[in-house]
């Protein structure tokens, strides 16, 4: 398309507000990251470059345990929710609309609509009953809870990928006497793989970020990285929290970049 000579779409002041918005969005994050490398104890006055807050965080056993827990829960929830979401996406796309399809959509997307704190309260009560009844106190509750709220995040990119896929290839496979399983394994799944990977990554990021539901569901000594950080805030605020935040932030940015590369339309 040719460039317009006269900028018809320009609205006075809009560009200024937009640039200010971008600056305001990034300034706090940049401050947080910068002061994680601060040699002094302050989170406002620069005392030279240092990695010692990272060293402190690394040497802290609570942080290590919380990190491990976050990764275990995140990986489990990502794998489980992506598997379930892939099946559900295969079940609800590319077939004639059937009775109850809307109901399935609503249930799958329900975690996106209910305020997190309400779900958290519901799980606190429900899992509390199960804990008393069975005596089991393990990480399973957190994994199931995370799996549930990750399902819609995994489902959406997988469904989007499925809807943009060409049915003709599968028809061709069937014409060549491939069994439905062979067709799925050799044609559908490889074509769907980028969508599945994207869904899994989103699910992992969402699980890693969760504060509210984890805070309500966890048993004693089951802090994840975010709930540990929230707990630290009750005490004094040190750059160690900045260092942990920066590491989490880095991980999120890497995963998101991968996500975007995977879901780019012209791949």
């Amino acid at each position, binding site marked *: 398309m040719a460039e317009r000579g006269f900028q018809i779409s320009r609205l006075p002041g809009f560009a200024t507000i937009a640039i200010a918005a971008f600056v305001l969005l990034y300034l706090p994050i940049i401050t947080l990251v910068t002061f994680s490398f601060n040699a002094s104890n302050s989170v406002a006055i620069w005392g030279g470059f240092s990695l010692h807050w990272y060293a402190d965080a690394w040497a802290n056993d609570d942080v290590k345990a919380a990190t491990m827990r976050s990764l275990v829960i995140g990986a489990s929830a990502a794998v489980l929710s992506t598997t379930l979401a892939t*099946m559900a996406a295969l079940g609800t796309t590319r077939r004639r609309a059937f009775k109850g399809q809307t109901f399935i959509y609503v249930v799958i997307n329900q975690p996106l609509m209910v305020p997190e704190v309400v779900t958290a309260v519901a799980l606190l009560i429900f899992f509390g009953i199960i804990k008393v009844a069975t005596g089991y106190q393990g990480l399973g509750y957190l994994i199931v809870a995370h799996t549930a709220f990750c399902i819609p995040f995994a489902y959406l990119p997988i469904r989007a990928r499925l809807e943009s896929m060409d049915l003709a290839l599968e028809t061709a496979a069937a014409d060549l006497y491939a069994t439905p399983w062979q067709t799925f394994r050799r044609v559908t799944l490889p074509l769907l793989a980028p969508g599945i990977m994207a869904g899994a990554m989103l699910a992992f990021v969402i699980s890693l970020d969760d504060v509210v539901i984890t805070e309500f569901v966890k048993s004693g000594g089951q802090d994840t990285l975010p709930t540990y950080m929230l707990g630290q805030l009750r005490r004094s605020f040190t750059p160690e929290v900045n260092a942990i935040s920066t590491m989490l932030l880095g991980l999120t940015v890497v995963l998101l970049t991968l996500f975007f590369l995977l879901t780019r339309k012209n791949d």
Partner: protein
Amino acid sequence: MSPAEDNAVRTSARNGWLLSLPALVVLAFAASGPLLIVVWYSFLTANDTGNVIHEWSIEGWKGIFFTYDIFEERYALADAHLTIFWRSVWLSLTTTALTFAIGFPTAWFIATRPQQQRALWLFLITIPFWTNLLIRTFAINEVIRNEGLLNTLLIWAGVIETPLQINYTETAVLIGMTYVYLPLMVLPLYATIERFDMRLLEASYDLYASRLRTLRRVILPIVKPGIIAGSILVFVPSLGAYVTPRILGGGKNMMIGNFIELQFLQGKNWPLGAALSVALLFIVMAALLVYVRVANRDRGAGHG
């Protein structure tokens, strides 16, 4: 329809259900189902040591609006609770308005960039969108707290002598929520503005409309679905916000989410907490229903 086709349709529907079933079971177990238990608990009797006694009672629901005065032996309006409700609604509405005031120009700016640049600008909005809410709240806290960036700079520049007390005020919660929810407003607005036909502007200006009039009479009516979507996306999580008011508001500026937590994790009054949760859920559902109705009406009328 022939019997064979009929059969195929039925098989297809059955497979659709079977494939969706595992996800539905997990969601019923750890998301939708437990919500019913909350409704049930809101009608039970509070136990002083936390949890509940299994006796039917509507004290939890009454507790939202009234407190029982043991000296005068009568119910009085619970001012503290009403203040929290009012604050939650007011802060959420203001947050929605502020994110719109900043988000609309931002979305317009992104949508009017040359095609190749747009993806980059969008990516810049998406990174904060997916970044941990807790980290973003920490980040804004770094800027506005007493020893934070803003106060340090202002004192250094000689504008003020003592730090501005922003943290632990309603203003801090408002700044924080606007900051963390801004991307939720920008993204749906961008999606509608991107489809906006810029030739309509040309037509409007040709007919001697001023920029302001064009904005009011041409642009805003057409991007209305995006405005509504963005407002719902900001309003709903604001109303249920927990992390941001807890960190930036302190104990004094609680919102509904923190008040609910107080009833449960501090073991005060589970039925009241359950009743508050159900009430919050109803308000959110009402907002979503309004959204669905308006969105459908617009879709119906849009092609007329």
